[in-house]
């Protein structure tokens, strides 16, 4: 095994459950199975795209990976080191190397601090820099993410949604981390700024050997940035493989429906692709269906799917699928 084959991050049967109380239903306290039995290996220098239906557990998994959430079951390894149960103090040296960009920029930026301060904060805590050095690095980071120098003294509310998102990215890359988990980092940006950020992330990856886990709903962006993608459905990974292959020939019926629903600019109406419409109710992570969790909405479900849960297994070289009847690819 060469050095680059050593996974930078690995989850083994990782699960996260929330327990919630209910007021409007008579069912009492319930358990949300937000992330269920996820085993994922991320190698140094690659970008894993994480896609799936709204509410399927992407953000929860992301927060588990950077240990912002405690992990209910399973294991999490960072650079070979088991960090599943490490205390906050033990995590400190890991934190610098493992960063996250949040889906909701306004929720993660303190509204009372100027954005220049917000970007300087991780530098003050972790980097040995003089205050002039910090100022210089902040200016450099602003430039990298396409913010203007006169933005430094502004407060988060004085920014547009996309500008705030870039503050979050600047903060996350400030310390030259090894791995960055990006939760919808470009969804608030127009396509030209999005292209700049996507190019920037690629440049940083080349230069610093960064590894990314990239969550986004815009599948053409995910395809562009990812070397591999993992498709989630109701808390579990249902398909995983090289991104271009999964996009051109998805094997899991859910991946097929997802990819068929992407709206694209079509100049000729006849060019519209056929969309697979999923029927049936969206299942709840409170009461996941028996058998294959996708079976109530699956267009190819058969009896076996209603009782037996398919495991995520190698379908062909490099491709894993959790389905009893995957499409041949």
């Amino acid at each position, binding site marked *: 095994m060469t050095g680059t084959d050593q996974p930078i991050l690995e989850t083994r049967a990782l699960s996260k459950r929330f327990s*919630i109380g*209910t*007021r*409007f*239903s008579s*069912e009492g306290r*319930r358990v*949300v199975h937000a992330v269920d039995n996820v085993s994922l290996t991320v190698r140094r220098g690659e970008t894993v795209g994480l896609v799936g*239906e*709204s*509410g399927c557990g992407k*953000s929860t998994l992301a927060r588990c990976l950077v240990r912002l959430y405690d992990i209910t079951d399973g294991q999490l390894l960072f650079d070979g080191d088991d960090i599943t149960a490490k205390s906050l103090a033990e995590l400190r040296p890991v934190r610098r190397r493992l960063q996250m960009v949040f*889906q*909701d920029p*306004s*929720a993660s930026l303190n509204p009372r601090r100027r954005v220049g301060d917000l970007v300087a904060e991780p530098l003050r805590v972790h980097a040995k820099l003089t205050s002039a050095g910090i100022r210089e690095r902040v200016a450099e980071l602003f430039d990298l993410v396409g913010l*203007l120098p*006169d933005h430094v*003294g*502004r407060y988060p509310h*004085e*920014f*547009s*949604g*996309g*500008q705030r998102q870039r503050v979050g990215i600047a903060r996350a890359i400030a310390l030259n981390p090894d791995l960055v988990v990006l939760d*919808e980092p470009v*969804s*608030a*940006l*127009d*396509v*030209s*700024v*999005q*292209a*700049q950020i*996507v*190019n920037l992330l*690629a440049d940083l990856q080349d230069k610093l050997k960064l590894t990314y886990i990239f969550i986004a*709903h815009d*599948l*053409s962006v995910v*395809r*562009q940035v990812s070397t591999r993608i993992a498709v989630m459905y109701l808390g579990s990974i249902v398909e995983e493989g090289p991104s271009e292959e999964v*996009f*051109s020939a998805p094997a899991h019926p859910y991946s097929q*429906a*997802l990819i068929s*629903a992407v*709206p*694209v*600019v079509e100049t000729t109406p006849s060019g519209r692709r056929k*969309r697979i419409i*999923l029927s049936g109710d*969206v299942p*709840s*992570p*409170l*009461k996941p269906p028996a058998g294959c969790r996708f079976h109530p909405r699956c267009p190819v479900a058969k009896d076996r799917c209603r009782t037996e849960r398919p495991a995520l297994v190698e379908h062909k070289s490099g491709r894993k699928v959790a389905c009893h009847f995957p499409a041949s690819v």
Partner: protein
Amino acid sequence: MMLSVRDLKVSFRTDDGLVRAIDGVSFDLEEGEILGVVGESGSGKTVSLLAVMGLITDPNAVIEGSIRYKGRELVGLPARELRRLRGNEIAMIFQDPMTALTPVYTIGWQIAEQIQAHQRLSRSAALDRVEELLAEVNFPNPREAMSRYPHQLSGGMRQRAVIAMALSCNPALLVADEPTTALDVTVQAGILDLVRKLRATHNSAVVFITHDMGVVSELADRVMVMYAGRIVERGSRSELFNDPSHPYTRALLGSIPPLTGDKPRRLPAIPGSPPSLLRLPKGCAFGPRCPARYEPCDAGKPDLAGGSHAAACFRVAQA
């Protein structure tokens, strides 16, 4: 005409000087029409529509121009009157769902409250209506979801809760600011259907801000492109996508990553960044980044010229 905005200008006084966020924006919206608004991040899409809604609360804001809704001038209308219009006739879906939700109440409580503020309904009828609305926006198990606090929902679920809230009064005018950014494409398709249904059943007009060109091309009748506080191009959906004329629009459409075929190593991004709104250039604001720029572009600002398909560009005007 349902909505008619004329020469709208919005500036903010800041420590560094006056930020000219909106620099003369005019547009009309008819009943039953869906207008897509796209443009550079920070170009003023949100601020211009917040101004229309009377929702700019920053005391340092200066708003000029005219905004007529069904013939009635909204600029200068007392806050109480505006509040009555919003919720009864005009509804807004905010870019950031947490602006519309408070963390301390369950979402069922909050949406029911909103419904009861504008409709005479008993609490239990309001709660039934909330359940219906949440089911429409694709919530699994809506009754149960009503008892959740916002932080117990996923980002996309929060966004859908806010959409449900906005749709609760069947508004005549719906302003939706990036309502589907946190939604996967299948759920998004459902939301776009709801917007079309609102138009079909209530002849509502919709302003839909998004940077997803695919969504605009599926939903909008007309499209408006903004850059540095101005409209740089507008036209029907097909005029804009089949025959974009402004250099910014062309560059914008060129930056969309492909979904099929070869992956470019780098995406064709527009070089440079938009101007600081504290120091707008004397000429065309896109000039410093524009591949088509020539002498006239530095001398003054191009006006939006043309008929239904119009662009603010000296090159286009000359052609």
